């Protein structure tokens, strides 16, 4: 066991020495791997942020119903009663036009605009929660409500949340696809770099074999080299993504404020970071393993 451990230690040390022996080469290789990995890692980071954002938004689907602007209060109360009796409607909230006006006036920038208008531009409105929240059922209700008298506009408030959900799903698939593609790229990079290493250390491999080295002994430093490449590339990717996140944080928060959202761009979480590094090291190892399988037979 101690022999095994110390041989692994030696192999790892040798791999580090070999990386350090050609610093420019190693650095450029790590950069190439890092950039390749930064794309899916960055995608994952943005996705996590978007998920966070959509989670913070109420996803309870509601239907907003707006009366015609010239509809009397009487018509509105009739609609209110009808909604209250309607099967499938769980809760009805009436929003009188005066209340909307008051709320809008208290908002920044709009006050002057509204005061310049001759009359209250807002209609009476209802916010309706329903029992069956599936999109199809809600759309059926919306169609129904549109035909009621004095109703100007019916809107499904959940539509954009659903669209965001669908978009996020697409985003996740894209990140996976990107990760798979660039992961294969990483394997290829590791493969060819290890091949070059094998060529460089041909004499050593041959002599070790003649002196009684097992395949495991010969392969070990190369496999560690692959792991280090992957891991180093993963660290580079992490640094790139984190730097980009910190850099984008202020302008993005500014943009979000304009849309009345509070958004602080989060860097990769601990789980995602660990996943990135593990994934990178594993793929580096895999590339090295395939390369050794391919090239060891020659010696």
């Amino acid at each position, binding site marked *: 066991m*101690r*022999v*095994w451990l*110390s*041989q692994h230690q*030696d192999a790892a040390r040798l791999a580090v020495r070999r990386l350090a022996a050609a610093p420019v080469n190693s650095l450029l290789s790590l950069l190439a791997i890092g950039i390749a990995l930064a794309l899916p890692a960055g995608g994952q980071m943005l996705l996590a942020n978007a998920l966070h954002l959509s989670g913070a938004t109420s996803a309870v689907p509601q239907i907003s119903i707006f009366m015609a602007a010239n509809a009397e209060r009487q018509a509105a109360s009739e609609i209110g009663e009808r909604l209250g009796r309607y099967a499938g409607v769980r809760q009805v909230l009436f929003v009188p036009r005066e209340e909307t006006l008051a709320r809008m006036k208290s908002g920044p920038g709009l006050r002057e605009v509204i005061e310049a208008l001759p009359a209250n531009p807002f209609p009476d409105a209802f916010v309706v929660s329903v029992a069956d929240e599936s999109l199809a059922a809600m759309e059926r209700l919306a169609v129904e409500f549109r035909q009621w008298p004095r109703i100007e506009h019916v809107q499904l408030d959940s539509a954009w949340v659903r669209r965001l959900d669908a978009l996020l799903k697409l985003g996740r698939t894209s990140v996976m696809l990107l990760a798979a593609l660039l992961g294969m790229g990483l394997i290829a990079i590791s493969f060819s770099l290890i091949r070059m290493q094998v060529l460089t250390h041909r*004499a*050593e491999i*041959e*002599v*070790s*074999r*003649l*002196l*009684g*080295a*097992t395949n495991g*002994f010969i392969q070990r430093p190369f496999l560690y080299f692959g792991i280090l490449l992957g891991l180093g590339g993963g660290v580079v990717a992490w640094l790139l993504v984190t730097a980009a996140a910190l850099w984008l944080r202020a302008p993005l928060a500014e943009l979000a404020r304009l849309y009345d959202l509070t958004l602080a761009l989060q860097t990769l979480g601990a789980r995602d970071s660990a996943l990135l590094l593990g994934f990178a090291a594993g793929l580096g190892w895999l590339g090295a393993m395939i390369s050794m399988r391919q090239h060891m037979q020659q010696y």
Partner: protein
Amino acid sequence: MIRFERVSKRYPPGLDALSDVSCEVTEHEMALVCGHSGAGKSTLLKLIAGIEKPSGGALLIGGQNLAALPRSALPFLRRRIGMVFQDQKLLFDRSVFDNVMLPLAIVGFPRRDAAQRVRAALDKVGLASREKAMPVMLSGGEQQRLAIARAVVNRPSLLLADEPTAHLDAQTAADVARIFHEFHHVGVTVLIATYATELFPAARRLQLDHGRLLS
């Protein structure tokens, strides 16, 4: 220790390097493999180290038939044999010390004891003061002695050497021969392929001629 039973080695497309060779080298013996260039001396040593496989016959090392040895067992056979190669096969990217350390690293020898062993082996061949040097800084004779140190650092019971005194001046060749004699005296079985038979007057000779062993 080593027994050849009607061993032959044929290289494609039909070159017989060894034909029908039968002989035995007993434990603690020192023997020379002699013959003209191309007689099959190197092939004979390569067969013993498992670098080449016989085309026919049986080759037994310590009672074990090499033909029946699985490929995965080969490294463990080689660890019991010290080999000095014709072209030495030193690693020029590491120091004298690290070259001799390699066989010990391969078997996983404890590091601290290994360093002592390396120094003992270097001392034995007279290179104790050069352990930090790189092989390229050594003279031809010193490189040959370094190759011997690497071959014996594992304390093998069998030492094979392929032309260990070729390209050396008379004095250096005599030094190298003396080192082999010393190992023989401490009980190592030594088998040397060489032209320079006069350097080993007491050793038994196995004379090869065009791949055949002359009795």
